[in-house]
């Protein structure tokens, strides 16, 4: 009955099938095969990435929960803990952008409130193909609407994120969604199935045929037939999820629950087996009791469905009534479908027959782990800098062009579709280096950011990994927040290709090294492989989500210049590094490395210094230099400033002016400060061995750069602002 075609349909290899037979001591039936195919998929098992992910530092004094649960948890003081995680929904978002993105939001939110935490923020990192192609525009439009439709209705603010564009994301868009919740430290709940005989409750929406094989789909490349996979994408119902969230939080706050797990990827299969596995118990369920939206569903379909807005709860027998009352109040099903058993088997019955009887361990923990073949690509597109193209005659025009490119242009078109203020904690509106959330009734604020650069990682994956961590932490330092924990989303191509795996290994080692130097733990994350369509892979794209804390919210600073006549100070050094810059790509169509190099120890010192001067209230603004270089960084300080003051900057480095203006050297931050503070800042910088010098002044109506006595950029600030502000709306106009 089980032949090669069936195995192919389930994305299982022959060797994997033999292992299943060996583990269960017989041939599996179709339902059992389906269960193994889901749980052994790349998406659920991490079979290709596990050996590498073990290198990441996962512990630290503030870590309450590291990787392996629904989300990571760190202690943020005042009796509170932050629960956070990032996850990809790349594949479904390509096939059906609205629902793909919407259910991505729904899934990550369940991961948070499953643990008893109320979600307070969403951020997303989005990557699309260039917007001159209609398909990419329509994908972006759909994804943004999907996030908006789900997050807004749930009442969880989307407070920040990033959106970038590159050809490699055509047909492979990336939708990485991050969520963070708050919980009292002693009220955290875990996915466990403890207490032999305890009832297993199914709560939330009914099960339908949607999303069957979603996890398997996300574990293979797309061919030309990808549109036909639309039925694999789940359909979201944010209203149902809002009810589910309120009911779950009410039940957890009243301590009525022993264990709880959401049914996300791999639905009922994953939640039952993972909970039992974590507690070393078995679990028995009766599928006839499972609330169903459609008639005639088979055990295979019920076990594999990825219908949204469902949870599995283990509670004590004496508490079932109370739990059911709460769910009834919120008009939701809460049905006993089984119980926790001795031993460690998953037993599933359907119409009086046992249809599944397999060892939990085999499903959850005995999936083969692959040490995939690794091979460094022959060419990494490096080139000597003397081959740089001629310097453009009009660098003002270059700056305007960069500012109006979709990757750097103002993203208001996107974030005003998101309710970013609900829950009234949003202290910084979107568009700053990091999102800043006040915590009511405390002085504490949390700062959140997402960051990554695919081109750096393509050209030099190790540096790309390090730079992603460094920049995310620098973003937090720019608002005055100390980084406390990291979650990462690693987006790659097909892991069966040795060059992809080499890049993966390099990126993970880069991230790992940087996290060790900065002393921040990785508390969880997600790996998304097979981001390939028709044989073309994305650039390796690590996205880092970093959570930081500021003890006194009144000390936080933002990006914008505040007053005319303030001094502009550059912390860090402008190096002769043009490689991998957005400038080379946009103005010259070149993608060559090496990307800017990073000295992690120096970076750490710089961030520490920045935190110190912010806590002393010496500066009025801070913004890190990243894509687009120094010129774009300064322009952004002007655009987000009060009344948008112009500025004049003088540079004296002996290098090409375009590299100086648009190069992306690491470990640089632009700050502004009043006269009185400047001398103090310079003196302290000297003491701390931080490169620091005044490069100009705010004021006037022009954006002015001088290089070695020559004016290289001279623009009207209003005109530049308008180019930056209107670019995206113009492109997206119907």
């Amino acid at each position, binding site marked *: 009955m089980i032949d090669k075609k069936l195995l192919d349909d389930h994305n299982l290899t022959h060797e994997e099938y033999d292992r299943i037979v060996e583990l269960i001591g017989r041939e599996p039936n179709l339902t059992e095969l389906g269960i193994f195919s889901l749980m052994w998929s790349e998406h659920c098992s991490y079979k290709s990435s596990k050996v590498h992910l073990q290198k990441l530092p996962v512990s630290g004094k503030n870590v309450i929960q590291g990787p392996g649960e629904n989300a990571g948890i760190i202690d943020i003081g005042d009796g509170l803990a932050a629960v956070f995680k990032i996850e990809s929904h790349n594949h479904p978002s390509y096939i059906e952008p609205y629902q793909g993105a919407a259910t991505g939001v729904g899934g990550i939110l369940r991961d948070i409130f499953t643990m008893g935490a109320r979600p307070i923020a969403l951020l997303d990192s989005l990557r699309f193909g260039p917007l001159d192609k209609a398909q990419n525009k329509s994908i972006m439009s759909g994804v943004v609407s999907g996030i908006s439709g789900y997050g807004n209705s749930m009442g969880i603010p989307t407070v920040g994120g990033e959106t970038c564009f590159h050809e490699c994301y055509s047909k492979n868009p990336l939708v990485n969604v991050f969520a963070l919740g708050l919980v009292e430290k002693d009220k955290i709940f875990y996915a466990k199935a403890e207490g032999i005989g305890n009832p297993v409750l199914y709560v939330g929406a009914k099960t339908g045929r949607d999303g069957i094989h979603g996890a398997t789909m996300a574990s293979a490349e797309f061919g030309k037939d990808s549109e036909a996979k639309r039925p694999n994408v789940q359909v979201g119902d944010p209203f149902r999820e809002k009810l589910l969230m309120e009911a779950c939080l009410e039940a957890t706050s009243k301590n009525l629950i022993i264990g709880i797990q959401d049914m996300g990827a791999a639905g009922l299969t994953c939640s039952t087996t993972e909970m039992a596995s974590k507690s070393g118990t078995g679990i028995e369920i009766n599928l006839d009791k499972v609330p169903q939206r459609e008639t005639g569903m088979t055990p295979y379909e019920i076990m594999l469905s990825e219908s949204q807005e469902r949870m599995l709860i283990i509670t004590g027998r004496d508490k079932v009534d109370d739990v059911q009352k709460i769910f009834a109040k919120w008009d939701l099903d809460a049905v006993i479908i089984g119980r926790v058993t001795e031993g460690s088997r998953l037993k599933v019955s359907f119409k009086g027959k046992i249809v599944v009887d397999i060892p939990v361990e085999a499903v959850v923990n005995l999936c083969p782990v692959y040490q995939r073949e690794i091979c460094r690509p022959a060419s990494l597109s490096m080139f000597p800098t003397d081959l740089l193209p001629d310097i453009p005659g009009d660098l003002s025009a270059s700056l305007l062009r960069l500012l109006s490119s979709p990757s750097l242009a103002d993203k208001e078109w996107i974030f005003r579709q998101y309710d970013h*203020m609900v829950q009234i904690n949003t202290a910084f509106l979107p568009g700053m280096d990091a999102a800043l959330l006040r915590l009511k009734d405390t002085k504490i604020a949390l700062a959140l950011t997402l960051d990554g650069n695919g081109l750096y990682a393509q050209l030099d994956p190790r540096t790309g990994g390090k730079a992603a961590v460094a920049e995310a932490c620098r973003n937090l330092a720019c608002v005055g927040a100390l980084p406390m924990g990291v979650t990462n989303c690693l987006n790659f191509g097909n892991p069966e290709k040795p060059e992809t795996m080499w890049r993966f290994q390099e990126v993970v080692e880069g991230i790992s090294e940087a996290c060790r130097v900065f002393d921040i733990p990785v508390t969880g994350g997600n790996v998304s492989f097979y981001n390939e369509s028709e044989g073309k892979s994305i650039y390796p794209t690590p996205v880092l989500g970093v959570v930081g804390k500021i003890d006194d919210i009144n000390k936080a600073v933002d990006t914008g210049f505040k007053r005319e006549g303030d001094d502009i100070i550059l912390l860090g050094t402008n190096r002769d590094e043009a490689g991998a810059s957005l400038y080379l790509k946009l103005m010259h169509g070149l993608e060559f490395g090496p990307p800017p190099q990073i000295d992690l120890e120096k970076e750490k010192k710089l961030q520490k210094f920045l935190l110190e001067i912010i806590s002393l209230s010496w500066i009025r603004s801070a913004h890190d230099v990243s894509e687009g270089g120094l010129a774009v960084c300064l322009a952004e300080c002007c655009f987000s400033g009060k009344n948008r003051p112009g500025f004049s900057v003088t540079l004296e480095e002996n290098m090409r002016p375009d590299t100086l203006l648009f190069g992306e050297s690491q470990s640089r931050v632009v700050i502004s400060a009043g006269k009185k503070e400047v001398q103090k800042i310079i003196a302290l910088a000297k003491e701390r061995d931080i490169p620091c010098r005044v490069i100009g002044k705010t004021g006037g109506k022009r954006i002015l750069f001088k290089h070695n006595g020559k004016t290289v950029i001279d623009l009207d600030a209003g005109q530049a602002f308008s180019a930056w502000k209107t670019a995206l709306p113009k492109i997206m106009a119907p």
Partner: protein
Amino acid sequence: MKFGIVVFPGSNCDRDTFHVCNHVLGHKTVYLWHKSHDLQDVDCVILPGGFSYGDYLRPGAIGKFSPLMNEVGEYADKGGLVLGICNGFQVLLELGLLPGAMLRNKNLKFLCQFVHLRLEDNKTAFTRKAKIGQILRMPIAHFDGNYYADPGILDELRKENRVILRYCDANGLVSEDNNVNGSAESIAGLINKKGNVMGLMPHPERCSEQILSSEDGRVIFESVIDFIHA
């Protein structure tokens, strides 16, 4: 003074409004569950923002059938103060406690942003602490805030001074360019004939604390408090 905040399934600004009434302004505040029939002797009922019942059909279309809406209707008939914010405003329109209806925003997208509003009348229970012509900076967050009413109703609203807030620019200029969602006559908030039921699309609870970059929303709550205490 006691505020009551209605909780529909799908309300998501209930906790925010509670925070402002209770923690920021220091007044007794209770939640009113939509399935109950008890208004708990409150002095002002607030219908908060959100997506009552998911609003898949039309904002507020199902919310108006909530059991508690019977009591809210009677309470309003007797002159009790009812304030509808955003989705709460939409529910009041569906209930017929205020005239007109909401269409999708003119750009057919959800809009979350700060806007400027011109205060048109300060002789109401909800605006007595404000000045006529005062410009308020408040956030909006809605997909369906494009106010529509037939010309007869618009005439009546104008003649009876029942338009309370209009979208405008930073200098108070009302024009089609500043009419963010396309509302008829730039209407952002209005009141009933008796002056005890008001609806507005902007969110005063989102701008009642200094840390949230505007405190202009406080004047609405403070007017109600002043009116009740007067």
